[in-house]
């Protein structure tokens, strides 16, 4: 088993999916959270000047999506064949196309741009993504998973997005998408995930 160290700020942000993968698979790792001041010093020593970084036996890798896909493959959570893997990959990219613009909203200062972004989220990205997830759950025979018959990276990414929406006071967004809400609850009730979510540091992001 390699020695894993995940380096990020003290927040969920771009590292939480990796942390959930470690939790779901029961794999030990060092959850290294750094302060902003430490980052300024560390930044020049990192491969691309960004976080998160995954260290595997001391070797550093960046890019949160590549990290997530690597860990999912290692832990058997990237499908049972290459078409399932494609479906999972498609799902996480669709989720990211909604989650990233949504996360960026809170950092936007220009009011006109912020209003435009909110409109795009409300009228396009949100309904499109939640509808796609609803269809995918149904197409997968309502097994409780998005793809295949066991938990995958797609379920973890979906859980993260929906849990964020629900716990930031926007639960009405899920009113018309009950199967997606139920999926989030089921994934969240899996013992390893529940233990992690109940015990992880509580952070503003």
């Amino acid at each position, binding site marked *: 088993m390699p020695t894993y160290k995940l380096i990020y700020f003290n927040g969920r942000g771009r590292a939480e999916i990796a942390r959930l993968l470690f939790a779901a698979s029961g794999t030990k790792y060092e959850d290294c959270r750094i302060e902003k001041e430490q980052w300024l010093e560390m930044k020049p020593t990192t491969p691309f*000047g960004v976080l998160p970084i995954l260290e595997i036996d001391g070797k550093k890798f960046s890019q949160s*999506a590549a*990290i997530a896909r690597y860990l999912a*493959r290692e832990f058997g959570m990237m499908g049972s064949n*290459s078409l399932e*893997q494609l479906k999972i*990959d498609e799902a996480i990219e669709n989720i990211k196309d909604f989650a990233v613009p949504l996360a960026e909203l809170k950092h936007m200062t220009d009011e006109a741009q912020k209003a435009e972004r909110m409109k795009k989220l409300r009228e396009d990205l949100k309904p499109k993504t939640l509808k796609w997830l609803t269809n995918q759950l149904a197409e997968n025979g309502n097994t409780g998973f998005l793809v295949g018959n066991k938990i995958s990276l797609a379920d973890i990414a979906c859980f993260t997005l929906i849990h964020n929406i629900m716990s930031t006071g926007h639960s009405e967004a899920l009113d018309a998408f009950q199967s997606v809400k139920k999926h989030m609850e089921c994934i969240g009730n899996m013992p390893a995930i529940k233990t992690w979510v109940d015990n992880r540091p509580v952070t503003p992001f």
Partner: protein
Amino acid sequence: MPQYKLVYFNGRGRAEVARLLFAASGTKYEDHRIEKEQWPALKQKVPFGVLPVLEVDGKQYSQSGAVARYLAKEFGMMGCNNLEAFKIDEAYENIRDLCQALLGQLFETNKEEKAKKLQKIKEDLMPKTLKWFTNQLKENCTCGFLVGKKLSLADVAFFSLFDNVINMGHGKALDEAPTVKEHHTRIGNNAAIKKWVQTRPKTDW
């Protein structure tokens, strides 16, 4: 061998990496290009209302990144083990970040923002990316590929990116990164890639 059909507009855009993978691997596929007028009707019929779409034996999949990684894996261009796949994936995401920044700058309508974005690319993202890729080529000095001992998705995507960088008038950036420039030339001279580039439809983008 599955039946492949790649559906996109008549341009390189988000489909060109997939087309290069088909070409490099010598795999037959239908390169289906649609006109802008056909798009509104087709948009209702594709999984996420976006292109490109890859059809595999008639089943549709979207998300250019997921499609590229799937095809690369099918064609033996995603590394020989999970760590190589990770490195290739990391490289692809770094390429994508630069691509997105370049496109964002190209399509920015606000003059001030446009200039700001160009400055950030010239002073930060472009040199940072070129440095990462130079280091990666030097670290993998055996065979002239970005990762491992053979052509991978990383080489193909990087070649395609810098093709676009040159076409957009930023070719001078490569002059300051001779290792990267040499890699770009060498991948371009791969027989199958060269043939595709010479015979593909000529489009503005």
